[in-house]
């Protein structure tokens, strides 16, 4: 099974070149879009390990709130990639700089310290990008273990069987197992589907990890409760009520964001927020990052993050001496649905993380109940405890929009597949080779 990893690298932009950089990014965006619209191959497609990728300019202007430390202008590159080989990061970077050489040169020569033209080699380009690498705090993958090529393969399998089923007439009352068998025969007869003979690895929930987490939780419970009460009394109660509403948002900014949204059934989201000052808030953020890391890595492995079934990849990254936090995601549907889902289904999860950032809508006990994974929001009393934070819909949506950062270039390799499609396709592949009962076969046929 090939694992997917997050990569993020920052480069300092030369102020005198900012303008050129922006133009070049826009050129890349437009040519990518045009190619995609006309179903032409795109440059990014040459990077075989690349799932999603994006370039974002991060500067003082990207911050809604006063940054905790002065920040320059940075070009952020993030990718989600297939881990190939022992040094998979190196392998991926090598692919990036060899397959996207033109893009890399064009963009990074606007950055401080990029090798001069005569010094540019695969090695020097790679080393430049490596210098800016930073660690991802928490990473979520909606289809763990699915490489880009596997996703494309399984897509073609789904399409092939779909057409096969559609074009064939079955007598009424044909048992599902018989149809299942016929499909298997059809696929067996086609050499291009030879690969289906091998079962796809699908990551299961790591129960040990879940149990360890549970035990840790119980052992720590008194501490956790004390911590929550402490935070409540000494921090939350003192937070100012946030009243920024959606109608207060800056039109120019919103329009800039919307310009690139909802062109395809998938979208991206980039966000930067400033952590609240003080040790307690930072520690609290770390605790919740730890929790999210464990949950996202070991428990949320079935295509749902905090119950949200529309996310392909997401991650949180601390930057600037751990004083600022970046959030990135790639998801199905539109911003409103996505955020709506967030508040609807996992208000606690988000609240717990983001309440540690400046001017987040006021919280009480920052979603204490949410420590338990999968905790439904209708739990008795949860309304009372969880008043505020993400449940404060109007202000939460405004908070999220106002801290969002425009994404200059965004690439997604399988924009015609939702994350549910991706996971469903893998199930098709695996169930194809299994002996199914009539009931199971019926469910198998429902996948089309």
């Amino acid at each position, binding site marked *: 099974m090939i694992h997917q990893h997050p990569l993020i690298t920052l480069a300092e932009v030369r102020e005198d070149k900012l303008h050129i950089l922006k133009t070049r990014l826009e050129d890349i965006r437009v040519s990518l879009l045009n190619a995609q619209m006309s179903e032409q191959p795109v440059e990014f497609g040459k990077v075989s390990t690349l799932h999603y990728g994006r370039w974002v300019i991060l500067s003082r202007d990207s911050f809604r709130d006063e940054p905790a430390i002065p920040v320059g202008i940075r070009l952020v590159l993030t990718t989600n990639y297939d881990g190939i080989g022992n040094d998979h990061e190196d392998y991926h970077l090598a692919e990036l700089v060899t397959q996207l050489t033109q893009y890399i040169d064009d963009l990074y020569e606007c950055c401080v310290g990029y090798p001069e033209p005569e010094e540019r080699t695969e090695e020097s380009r790679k080393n430049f990008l490596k210098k800016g690498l930073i660690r991802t705090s928490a990473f979520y993958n909606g289809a763990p273990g699915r490489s880009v090529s596997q996703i494309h393969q399984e897509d073609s399998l789904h399409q092939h069987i779909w057409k096969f089923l*559609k074009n064939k007439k079955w007598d009424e009352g044909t048992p599902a197992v018989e149809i299942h068998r016929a499909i298997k025969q059809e696929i067996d007869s086609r050499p291009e589907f030879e690969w289906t003979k091998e079962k796809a690895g699908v990551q299961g929930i790591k129960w040990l990890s879940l149990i360890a987490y549970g035990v840790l939780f119980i052992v720590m419970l008194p501490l956790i409760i004390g911590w929550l009460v402490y935070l409540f009394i000494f921090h939350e109660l003192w937070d100012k009520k946030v009243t920024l509403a959606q109608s207060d948002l800056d039109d120019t900014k919103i329009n800039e964001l*919307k310009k690139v949204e909802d062109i395809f*059934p998938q979208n991206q989201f980039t966000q930067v927020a400033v952590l609240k000052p003080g040790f307690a808030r930072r520690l609290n953020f770390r605790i919740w990052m730890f929790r999210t890391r464990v949950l996202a890595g070991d428990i949320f492995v079935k295509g749902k993050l905090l119950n949200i079934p529309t996310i392909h990849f997401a991650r949180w990254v601390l930057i600037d001496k751990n004083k600022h936090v970046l959030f990135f995601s790639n998801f199905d*549907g539109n911003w409103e649905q996505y955020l709506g889902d967030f508040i609807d289904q996992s208000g606690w999860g988000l609240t717990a993380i983001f309440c540690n950032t400046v001017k987040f809508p006021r919280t009480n006990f920052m979603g204490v109940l949410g420590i338990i994974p999968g905790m439904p929001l*209708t739990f008795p009393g949860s309304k009372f405890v969880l008043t505020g934070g993400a449940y404060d819909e109007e202000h939460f949506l405004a908070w999220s929009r106002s801290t969002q950062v425009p994404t200059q270039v965004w690439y997604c390799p399988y924009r015609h597949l939702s994350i549910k499609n991706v996971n469903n396709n893998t199930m098709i592949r695996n169930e194809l080779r299994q002996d199914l009962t009539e009931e199971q076969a019926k469910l198998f046929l429902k996948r089309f």
Partner: protein
Amino acid sequence: MTALELSEIQAYLLSDYQQMGYSKYYLMQVKDAAATKNFLAAIAHGITHANATITDTCFNIGFTSNGLKQLGYNETNMHSFSREFREGMVTEHRQRLLGNFESSDPSKWQWGAPANDRIDLILMVFGKDEAIAEDFYNGIKDKFETALSVIHILDGKAMPDNREHFGFRDGISQPVIKGSGLPPCGNNNDIEPGEFVLGYKNEYTVYPDTALLKIAQGKPELLADNAEGLADERTKVKYKDVGQNGTYFVLLQLQQDVDGFWEFWKKQSVETDEKKRNEEATMLAAKMMGRWPGGAPLVKYDKDPGVDVTDDNFKYVKEDASGNKCPFGAHIRRMNPRDVFEESSPKVSLSLTRRHRIMRRVRSYGEDFIGSAENHKPNGEVGLLFGCFNANISKQFEFLQYTWGNSPKFKRLYADPDPLIGVREDPEKKLGQIFTIPQATTNRVISDMQSFVTVKGGAYFFFPSITAIKFLATI
């Protein structure tokens, strides 16, 4: 439960005026702002509010954001209206969201697009019949002749048994606003007022974004303080609320290709015998709608009962988890997934779907024609004046149209837009457009779906309270 201030709220929100056989929507432009304000002052008391006894006529009024600007509404104050309302229905992004392309492209609209004449307000006149409606209009006409000019008139009617032109009974599943005095309806249809009226708490138990008067103009003393208690940070004085007891109205003129609709379903039928083919076509059309022509829900009725059934007491999890009865892609299952919101538990789903409801207010236009597999050639253009009220256009109407309607990735589907309102004439090739009908073993797939509904015009309106209309007359 907070009781609604009924005599402040325009009645069309709370009543579908089915007894009003005829309606005329006058889309108007302000010629003279001062005269318009005089007109507003003169007719404010005559607007049908939810406490009024309804006799032979009803009269309601709404404003576009352009209209408010024409009246001299302050720019800063304007900003506290919702973005959707301020921007209007036609922006580049919204065109993508609402899927208004090809024949539905705003550049081809008859009204409401930037290329058409600007629309400032809508006067809605309802009468038991056409003559009564016109009489009423003629009675008030001289009051605004110098003030307003008529840009476009939309005639509408309530068709017998609430049918729409394709032949289906409409207006069955509707929310009931808590505190409105109407009897509770059950079936998850009882909804917090803030989903439909500004100034009340919504399903998240917060107040929806409302139109605060941040800069004093006109006679603010007419208005109440905002219910949430928001105040100016420096002076601590609470803002007056122009939105209180008001709501937003979405209006779309949707042309219906009744002949194309039934021809398509007949072509999809495998039966050759004429009668059987018509039956199959009706079954397929019902699959697409989620109800039989008479309204009987597929979830409860395997066969067409042949009579009108306005039953709304059903859910999907227990009754039809497989979709074998009512396809996941059916219009009503998408527009209100009831207890199956994504993959949440039934209980959570019900609470989530309550946050995405709209109050539909539709009228038909064109010939009084009710289509069927046997009879589907109306004379001239026919269609639906689709209207709906909501407190948050983005979370309600636009969410339904895009996320539940146009998105081909609804639920686990691959390439299925809403078969009624989400189909594009020129879809992305790689995806195609299909309608999947789950069956006991292999699903039935209708490929190359066609669009039978074309947008001819549309706009977002603000429907102020009676007091807010009086206030607008003073700005």
